[in-house]
């Protein structure tokens, strides 16, 4: 048997997910950290749904998947230069993403 690649950016296989789940990483945040899933260049666009299905199956339903991993900016990798001149003066008590 060869590999079934779930996360292409980080080369995370289906078997990696199974082993991580067996080792007690049974929520998406924890699974993500343990396997590297969703942490690469695409930030989960190609694997989050697959990983959600994997969890739903093992935990017994879509409701058991709960939230996706906390979504952090940015949506797409963007050069630092694009943000360097936003001289943002707003106070930090402004709500954030």
């Amino acid at each position, binding site marked *: 048997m060869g590999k079934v690649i779930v996360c292409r950016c980080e080369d995370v296989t289906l078997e990696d997910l199974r082993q991580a789940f067996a080792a*007690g*990483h049974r*929520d998406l*945040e*924890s699974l993500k*950290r*343990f396997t590297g899933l969703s942490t690469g*260049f695409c*930030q989960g666009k190609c694997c989050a749904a697959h990983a959600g299905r994997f969890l739903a199956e093992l935990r017994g339903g879509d409701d058991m998947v709960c939230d996706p991993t*906390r979504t*952090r*900016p*940015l949506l797409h*990798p*963007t*050069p*630092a*230069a*694009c*943000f*360097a*001149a*936003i*001289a*943002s003066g*707003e*106070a*930090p*008590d*402004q*709500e*954030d*993403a």
Partner: protein
Amino acid sequence: MRDRAELVIIGGGVLGLSLAYHLARMGLGDIVVIEQGYLCFGASGRNGGGVRQQWSTEDHIRLARRSVAIYRRLAAETGFNIWFRQGGYLFLSRDAVAAATLERNVKLQNSLGLRTRLLSPAQARRLVDGLDTSGVELCAYNPDDGVLFPWPVVWGLARVATSLGVEINTFCRATAIDVQGGRIVKVVTDRGAVATSRVVNAAGGWSSQVARLAGVELPNRPYRHEILVSEPLKPFLEPMVCDLADGTYFSQTMRGEICGGLSDPLEHSSLNTSSSLRFLSRMSASLLRLLPRLGGVKILRQWAGYYDETPDGNPVLGRTPGVEGFIQLNGFGGHGFMLAPAVGQIMAEWLLRRVREPLVERYGLERFSSGQLQRETLVIG
């Protein structure tokens, strides 16, 4: 979940687990750890992984030195790669006062056996290709400082501790600490109660909240600290670069990402872990200013954790006046990861052997009422 334990640790972060790990290895495995989220939920899973020995006080320098020694062997001890890379830490000072502080610190560090040395801006540029040192007065560099991956440290400590009898309960929240006649008798959680005579508060950003469960007021306050990471590139940056002027720090991880953050003087105390545009823009500006070559490097993600800060920048350790059996292990102000291995070991020895430990006494909660404060000034990266 066990209903009785020799010791309950609230907080499954690097400090609580380092303590559990060392205690279990010394023979006390009858421990229940209570973690409100998944492992790495709190600051232990949200920091940049910097581990340095360049500090301004003797205590911190000794603790950090000991911690680095432990980190150097931790992967082999736990069977978990932590990817500890000793690429050094480079501090930049931009005025005479900061430069004088660096000089003083380097002298102290050298007297304690560290290889830290002062560098001119030109020497710093040789260390970091493309570093813009305009306005930089003086630099300090220690080649033995480094960066690691925080998550596997936590998993490794947890796995070994578990194998030695420690029970770690994730997604479990402490709801009450039962104190009778000035002594701890029980910890109540949302998944049941554990009878115990000793409770360790290693709850990091939540340590003040946890202390209140036992009717204790801590001076600690959590402050959000934001951080970001870039696309992974081939290795081009060896040391962690820290600018004392605004608290910017960044390094390149083993995976090749630039990972860094900076302090925000406007931040007020909260457990808010949202991400802000203010940080994204300030950090981007800092990166471009210090290393203009990073202008075209793409930012992948930003996130936030917190510093559990105390009034004097030093941790809170040891006994709690008025509550027998309530032990503090918190207030590390964003440096828990750098000091946890040594502090966990020292606290384990102190708890098991009941010997006098000057460090635990110095960092006791009493100091805030007695006024015996010793300030740590290098609160960065």
